[in-house]
């Protein structure tokens, strides 16, 4: 894999790689991708893709409160907060 390809993929995954990681991860990615290439050997003509093993349909449920009030417990995990707002760096 070209280094540029690796960087593009990393950017899409919201990762930036340190130089030592580029070395290590590029070798590991290449090793696995080369193993994946054996998939070409099997004939999949006429086979529909499986997305879920046993799931056949979407299931909906009624939209209602379930009595759990998680808001405070969820907010307690925010890394930076001002009262009940989560703080992030400036967008603009």
């Amino acid at each position: 894999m070209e280094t540029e390809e690796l960087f593009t993929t990393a950017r899409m995954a919201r990762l930036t790689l340190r130089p030592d990681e580029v070395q290590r991860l590029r070798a590991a990615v290449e090793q696995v991708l080369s193993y994946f290439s054996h998939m070409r050997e099997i004939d999949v003509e006429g086979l529909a893709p499986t997305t879920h093993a046993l799931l056949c349909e979407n299931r909906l449920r009624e939209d209602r409160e379930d009595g759990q009030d998680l808001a405070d417990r969820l907010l307690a995990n925010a890394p930076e907060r001002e009262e009940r707002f989560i703080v992030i760096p400036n967008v603009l």
Partner: protein
Amino acid sequence: MDWRGLTASGEQTARWKSLAIERDRALGCFLQFDPDLGLAETAAAAEAGAAPAEGELSGVPFAVKDNIAVRSFRLTCASRLLRDLVSPYSATAVERLQKAGAVAVGKTNLDEFGMGSSTENSAFQETRNPWDLSRVPGGSSGGSAAAVAAGIVPFALGTDTGGSVRQPASFCGLYGLKPTYGAVSRYGLVAYASSLETLGIVSKTVATLERVFEIVRGRDPRDHSSLAWAPVPEKKGRLRIGVPRECARISLHADVKKAFEKTAAALKRLGHSVEEVPFPTLDHVVSSYYVIATAEASANLARFDGVRYGSRAAGAENPEALMTATRNEGFGDEVKLRILLGTYVLRSGFKDEYYLRAQRIRTAIRNDFERAFGVVDLILMPVYPVPPFARGSAEADPFTQKLADIFTCSANLAGLPALSFPAAVEGGLPIGMQFLAPPFAEERLFAACRELEAVFPSPDPPGFPAECR
């Protein structure tokens, strides 16, 4: 021993706690061990449901892999990124066990987000195999398996995405159940590969496994992929047990081979037939599995951005930089590798070659199983090609570990239930085998394992406390 009421308080509890702490010090099973907090949560769950908690599991301690939510406990997934996360709620399976009176006493170590087969990909600590401290307990549910094997708890919850319950159970001499996909709610499980993963159970006896499974299974309105329990009719008497013909081509360690032959002989002695079945896709299960698992992982792990929870990188000047820096600092190598692979196989231009092809191979794998189960009642395979390996990846590097998922990941691709069981102790190390069954035929797995358990129960590792039997 009678585990009931063990966590209640008193002299017996104190003895159990000090034994647990002492054994854990040597093994590193737990990332958090807090029986008192667990007891409070069980009391709260019982109150909410107003269920009498006087059953078989009342006061029975259990351990929970740290990618499954237990309210008030941390939920780290063994990742630096979630180091301080405290779970706001409990997984449905945990809640059902708590309502039955069981007590979640701690959170166990794992490979970060469940990605690995040795528990060495944890950001926090190593877990050792109770059979030999120089060896890994397997993974990714290694902490759960080690805690049960050490006699700290009679059962533990884990997750199995490609073998992560069955392989550590096998490495530690235990039973490990990967249920039918959807049979147990995944609500409260931190998602890694949603179409493959199931919540699973590790225990020292088949009876405990069955009892726990009865409690946790069934449809859950909070997980739309959960299914109502619809068991297939039990099969009485002589079973036809299939062994994929292509297994003969996979190189097995001599001890694993020996354990496999011993199991086949035991099954024949019990009156069952053991026969070969064709399984032409076996060579492609690992590729198909890793393409799909990494693709799903890259999407599922996109949520970890340092904004709403988790540790956040300091000094970022805009949200994009914040996300990138948080993920760089927070994820370990194996997680980054799988996110990169998953992102790559989903990229436009590569998707047909990898992701779509893997999904079509997945269909071929399902077809192989369907054909096999048209003839046989169960499939028998080893769990892992080698016995528990040495820590430090000298015996098995991460790539070799991936290839070794060949016997376990097909059950996940096809959504089938599978149960690994202790088959032998060779050279002082336990070796497991597994049965696979058609969807919702868990009872058939239990029945077959009960028969084998009568002749070869879960072996005790050196130093196993006699009172924990």
